[in-house]
């Protein structure tokens, strides 16, 4: 009897264990492979606010500060008076000069010079800044490049969107660009490498896209809205999975970025592509309804040959003829128009121009790719839904190169 019961217990335990194992195995097998998001690296930046001025300044410090401000302002006005009437700032210059103990005669001379120069420049600029152009309506809402350094591709995609009237995929242009330059792969790996924020040149990107034989629609390869801004991470995971031969994960990653592709197509691309061509091949396969590339000449005004005046003249020429332009520039002028040129390069489109009667200066409409917010820009700049009106004097300081599709 005891033995019988013992056998029963053993049998019951075995069956239970078996059932539990089966359920576990089944749930394991049924768990969908996912393109597990690796936690995005958190930038190690920022500082605690410091008490910059714990005691009231001494008269000497005040005087030195005023002298410093006087010098800074006179340099700024020397530049600005080449574009606009600076009378509004001259009273501030006088204040600083007086506080700093600068000789009255010198202040008057500087004020007169700046006034005359500003008036003459303002007249000249107004004469050349004829007409008012704003092509923002043709381009739709400002895009958001989120966390990827593909500003150049967004510029090129927006430019092609302007030319074709279709919303062109910036991601596809970036992938084409990266693929083209991948002979340098061992130097910067666009997806798997540490250089997760790879940038590029808009003129080269536009040229490569032109040579590709057709432009990809945004609806077929989305550049934005990629789940907590994980487009780049997902592409990197896709490439890594292929490298490790983890096909189920590679399929999961592909399904995320290319939701319209069928599983046989995904598997075919995974099977036939090497690591170097993988993302490009996915992009090519996903972009079914390609838009014919407009017949354009891509002209690049390079910083080694041309001056900022040439850049702005070429932009003026395009705007007056119903076209827009793409420019490389220092993005620090976006948050502080008085900022020195110290930052990396960025790329945006110039899509409009008008005479700003309040500023007394020609202003250009810059379409950025940082979303529709305006608080991220210098609050002195007029901004509507992420399109920023930038004074010519500021643009002259920050502009680096210009690309035109003529």
């Amino acid at each position, binding site marked *: 009897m005891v033995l019988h019961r013992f056998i029963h217990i053993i049998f019951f335990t075995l069956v239970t264990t078996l059932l539990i194992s089966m359920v576990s195995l089944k749930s394991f097998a049924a768990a969908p492979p996912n393109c597990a998001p690796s936690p*995005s*690296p*958190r*930038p*190690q*930046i*920022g*500082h*605690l*606010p410091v008490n*910059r001025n714990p005691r009231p300044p001494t008269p000497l410090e005040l005087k030195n500060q005023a002298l410093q401000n006087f010098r800074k302002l006179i340099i700024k006005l020397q530049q600005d008076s080449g574009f606009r009437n600076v009378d509004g700032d001259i009273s501030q210059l006088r204040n600083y000069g007086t506080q700093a103990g600068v000789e009255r005669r010198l202040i008057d001379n500087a004020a007169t010079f700046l006034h005359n120069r500003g008036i003459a420049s303002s007249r000249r600029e107004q004469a050349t800044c004829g007409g008012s152009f704003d092509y923002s309506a043709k381009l739709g*809402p400002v895009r*958001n*490049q*989120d*966390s*990827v*350094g593909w*500003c150049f591709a967004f510029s090129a995609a927006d430019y092609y969107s302007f030319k074709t009237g279709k919303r062109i995929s910036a991601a596809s242009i970036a992938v084409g660009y990266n693929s083209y330059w991948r002979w340098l792969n061992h130097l910067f790996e666009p997806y798997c490498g540490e250089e997760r*924020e790879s*940038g590029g040149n808009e003129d080269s990107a536009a040229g490569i896209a032109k040579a590709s034989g057709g432009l990809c629609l945004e609806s077929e390869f*989305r550049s*934005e*809205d*990629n*789940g*907590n*801004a994980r487009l780049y991470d*997902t592409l990197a995971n896709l490439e890594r999975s292929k490298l490790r031969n983890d096909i189920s994960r590679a399929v999961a990653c592909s*399904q*995320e*970025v290319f*939701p*319209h592709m069928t599983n046989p197509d995904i598997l075919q691309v995974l099977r036939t592509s090497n690591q170097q061509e993988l993302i490009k091949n996915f992009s090519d396969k996903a972009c079914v309804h390609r838009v014919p590339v407009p017949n354009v000449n891509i002209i690049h005004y390079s910083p080694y040959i041309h001056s900022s005046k040439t850049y702005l003249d070429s932009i003026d020429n395009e705007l007056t003829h119903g076209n827009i332009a793409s420019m490389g520039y220092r*993005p*620090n002028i*976006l*948050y*502080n128009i008085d*900022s*020195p040129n*110290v*930052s*990396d*390069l*960025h*790329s945006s489109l110039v899509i409009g121009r008008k005479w700003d009667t309040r500023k007394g200066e020609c202003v250009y409409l810059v379409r950025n*790719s*940082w*979303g*529709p*917010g*305006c*608080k*991220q820009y210098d609050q002195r700049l007029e901004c509507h*839904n*992420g399109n920023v009106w930038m004074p010519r004097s500021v643009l002259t300081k920050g502009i680096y190169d210009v690309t035109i599709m003529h």
Partner: protein
Amino acid sequence: MMLRSCINLYLLFFVISSVAASENSQLTCISGKIKVTAFGDETIQREKFCFDKDFAGIYSSSCRKNDCQAFKNPKRYYPNELYTKYGSPGFKLCRALQGTPEIIEFYAEKEWHGTDRCTFSDGFVDTDTLLDYYLDRLSGHP
């Protein structure tokens, strides 16, 4: 005379209250729809949120008075740490603050409005507002 003083006092109180609440009075708060598109899949969530007059700033109801996690980091950020060629500064800031950035649309006044948000454990706010709050513009640092 007494009545007039009372009315004056009431008016004064009203004016002071209005000024004190001016920050919030510019926001419109609703229980509405937020659309999140992740890899082609649209998800519409019904949430309580507030938005500004430009339809670019958006706050969860817990963040509308700047008292959620989004505004509790003691750090400030120099512009040149955020305004680089690599990605939008708002998303970079969001990640630095341990938030999760996301491109969204919200439905208000019979239209969908595109913006983004940075989500924390107790609420969310758009990255443009975060930049405005955390950017150390006065330091003289580039």
